[in-house]
């Protein structure tokens, strides 16, 4: 049953993405200043929102673990974090391609980009750390503390487009700016793609969660075999 739901959500989010692509590429017009390349925005911004959401869920799962000492919470935390890292990479990659076209360089060290990069590094450290601890209880404990520390960098990255005025453009969505700075049709499309990407990320997360559970079962069986 669980697998069927998973396949259904995966298919739906895939179809939704295709539908969105049709609108993005063929229906919506070019942007006045940037031309066709602006369309990368429809993946750049939703990609970041998806990764921030995943990190937020990982932080919640980590708190859940610290309060309840429930191994399932740790499984959720690692699954969310890995998906978050993937979408951070999507955000960084789309941003770099966009920067190459508009700014002429792949990367500039402006605070907004730097925080995003730091965020990625921090969570990569988290994943590496998990790999170095064998005992599940200790791993979950240490990893959940690191996850909470790392989440501070996510908050800074999210707020960095407000705190620093730099080369990277500021907030565009009207709930952040308080006014309509972006064409409503384009903003609408951003939300559509956000929903599609979040659904897709949810599917990835569930797949990873399944793997993590199997891994845990395997480890337990291996320990049992050793003790015999």
């Amino acid at each position, binding site marked *: 049953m669980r697998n069927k739901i998973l396949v259904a959500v995966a298919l739906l989010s895939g179809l939704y993405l295709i539908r969105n692509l049709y609108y993005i590429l063929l229906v919506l017009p070019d942007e006045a200043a940037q031309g066709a390349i602006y369309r990368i925005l429809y993946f750049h911004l939703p990609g970041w929102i998806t990764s921030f959401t995943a990190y937020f869920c990982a932080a919640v799962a980590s708190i859940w673990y610290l309060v309840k000492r429930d191994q399932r919470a740790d499984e959720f935390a690692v699954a969310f974090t890995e998906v978050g890292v993937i979408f951070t990479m999507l955000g960084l990659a789309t941003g770099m391609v966009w920067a190459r076209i508009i700014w002429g360089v792949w990367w500039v060290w402006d605070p907004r980009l*730097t925080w995003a990069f730091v965020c990625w590094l921090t969570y990569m450290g*988290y994943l590496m750390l998990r790999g*170095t601890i064998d005992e599940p209880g*200790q791993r979950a404990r240490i990893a959940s*503390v*690191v996850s*909470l*520390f790392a989440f501070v960098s996510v908050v800074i990255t999210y707020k960095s487009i407000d705190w*620093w005025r730099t080369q990277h453009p500021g907030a565009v969505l009207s709930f952040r700016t308080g006014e309509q700075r972006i064409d409503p049709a384009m903003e609408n499309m951003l939300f559509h793609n956000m929903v599609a990407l979040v659904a897709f990320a949810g599917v990835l997360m569930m797949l990873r969660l399944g793997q993590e559970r199997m891994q845990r079962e395997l480890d337990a069986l291996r320990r049992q075999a050793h003790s015999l």
Partner: protein
Amino acid sequence: MGQVLTIAWKDLRSELRTKESINAAAAFSMVILVLFSFVLDIAGDSREFAGGLLWLVFAFAGALVLNRSFAREQPNDCLDALVASPLPGWALFLGKAIANFALLAIVEAVALPVFGILFNANWLRFPGWIALTCALATWGMTVIGTMFSALTVNLRLRELMLPVLVYPMLIPVLMAAMKLTTSMLTGEGVTADDWVWVKLLIGFDIIFTSLSLALIDVILVS
């Protein structure tokens, strides 16, 4: 508070008697200064990059002191004894952090004048701001360093994991300190534009100190 000071004093005394990490940190900071001099043209105007270099020196040298913080309790199972003692976890953490802060301040007090002479930087133009920046940023480094020293104390690959985890965490505090120091060296002082960095330092210190105090028990009690 008495317990906190007891721990801090214990750590300081044991460090000042052996001078293990503080000597290493001071010597290492000199080595980095020499290495920098090969890369950069210090005959010209060094004010633009001196602030950045200074904090790199502090970060690398400081890590030597901070990494030892909990590791030095491992021989003879001192850490287990400390955890088993009636001392609350937060008092242990705070005591160690205060001791580390004092040690880092000593390293900085040695490195600052040497740096000023070798790289022709005048630190005394805004003494109050320099002191404030050093205090805030060093506390930030201390809290993160001490916490991660506690986190990784029992790990198999401790030496490998510490730098990978600690330096990304330190980037906000280092970046703010670098920007502020550069503003002071280039002559403008701390202007309205720089306030965001001062606020970042204060916020960083408050957030990470409270997080560490709240979570240290989880780490220590296994």
